[in-house]
């Protein structure tokens, strides 16, 4: 009797969880599809840097988990930060990432995005593998790492944005302290804005 009840509950769980899994997968896939649509529109718009920046802000906010990006970019020093300093750093990361996308996706040359796989390597941790297909040259592999419903890392042709940034920031914090890091990130953002 207990065995039958157990089997029944297992079956119920499978039937109940499968649509949930599919719903999650669809939501994850949709997040990236929408992000790619915005990137493509921005490239096609032929707009100035500041207009591209404004167009991207909402998409960056809905796609990226900026708190996770910030704390993992900073590493151990994050734990020692007060709430205000954490918010300040997260805001800078948001500006930097938006400015970087606005800078890089500045012209359209028949680029196309393609999702090649959506997997859930761990519960609640998703990986979306995509390709940026260009008119000439090899396609660029873009992998999006998700925590729950939002992205915390992008890996382009094997180069992890988060891992490179953490190594870079760790070296700067070690040499110039947290304030030195903030100043350097601000200078980078200003550089991206001013040179356009």
């Amino acid at each position: 009797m207990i065995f039958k009840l157990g089997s029944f509950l297992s079956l119920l769980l499978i039937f109940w969880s499968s649509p949930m899994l599919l719903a999650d997968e669809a939501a994850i896939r949709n997040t990236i599809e929408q992000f790619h649509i915005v990137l493509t529109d921005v490239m096609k718009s032929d707009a100035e840097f500041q207009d591209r920046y404004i167009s991207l802000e909402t998409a960056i906010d809905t796609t990226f988990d900026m708190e996770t990006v910030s704390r993992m970019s900073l590493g151990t020093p994050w734990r020692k930060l007060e709430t205000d300093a954490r918010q300040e750093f997260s805001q800078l990361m948001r500006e930097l990432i938006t400015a970087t996308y606005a800078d890089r996706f500045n012209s359209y040359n028949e680029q196309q995005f393609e999702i090649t796989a959506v997997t859930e390597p761990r519960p609640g941790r998703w990986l979306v593998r995509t390709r940026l297909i260009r008119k000439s040259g090899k396609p660029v592999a873009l992998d999006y790492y998700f925590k729950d419903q939002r992205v915390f890392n992008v890996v382009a042709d094997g180069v992890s944005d988060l891992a490179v940034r953490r190594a870079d920031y760790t070296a700067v914090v070690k040499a110039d302290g947290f304030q030195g890091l903030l100043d350097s990130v601000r200078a980078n953002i200003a550089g991206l804005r001013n040179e356009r």
Partner: protein
Amino acid sequence: MNADHSHNLLASFLVAICLSSCSTLQGPDLGVYDRTESSNRTSFNVMEGFDRFIGKPAARTYQTLLPDWAEKSIGHFFLNLRTVDSALNSYLQGNVKAGTKNVSRFLINSTLGVGGLFDVASHMNIDYHQEDFGQTLAHWGYTRSRYVYFPVIGPTTVRDLPGDLFHLIISPRLLLGNGYDVWVGSLDTLSRRSDALLITDARDDAALDKYIFTREAFNQKRRFDILNGDVPVDDSMFDDLDDWDEPEAEVPRRDRIE
């Protein structure tokens, strides 16, 4: 140079590589293996200075002066010369399919593509598979090697350096002979620097410590190339995430950063 002498040189070269590989396999299992950071940084800074005042301006001038089609043709020509090296290393890795594709590319582009000036093979869906001797060594087990920043070559490892020198400097000379003189070599260098402008500009916009940024990005990209793009899911990224989701240890107030 007679044949015996050539064989002796080749044997010495291979022995040197084996010795260096044995000595560098002793490195740590995790993290970037950069035991000579100080001298690497010096080399990096010197080359960056040279690049800032000579390399980059020359590459930008080259891009401005040459029409796109001419730039592409010059790039195709030198890539075609290096396809032979890629074909050889594909075979050395046991990848017959990639090796044959590279040989086909070389033959098609050298003939129908007018000495490699036009990339006819890509239009026939015969893609280029870039392989070098460092990738071959990595394929056969020499996976861990010391990072070095070598003048002219740039970021590399002890394992990759001989292959880089061969791929960049010797392989075009083997096919062109004396035709690969200082002028043709300079054009080749200029073409490659011009191709890399997009990447180095992106790095300059993003990096705070350019040396660290270059080293990290190189190591990861190199791994990607060695695995032919088939990189497994980065579990360490998820491990880090899980660690962060654990309750935070109490930080004494005196240690907090405000």
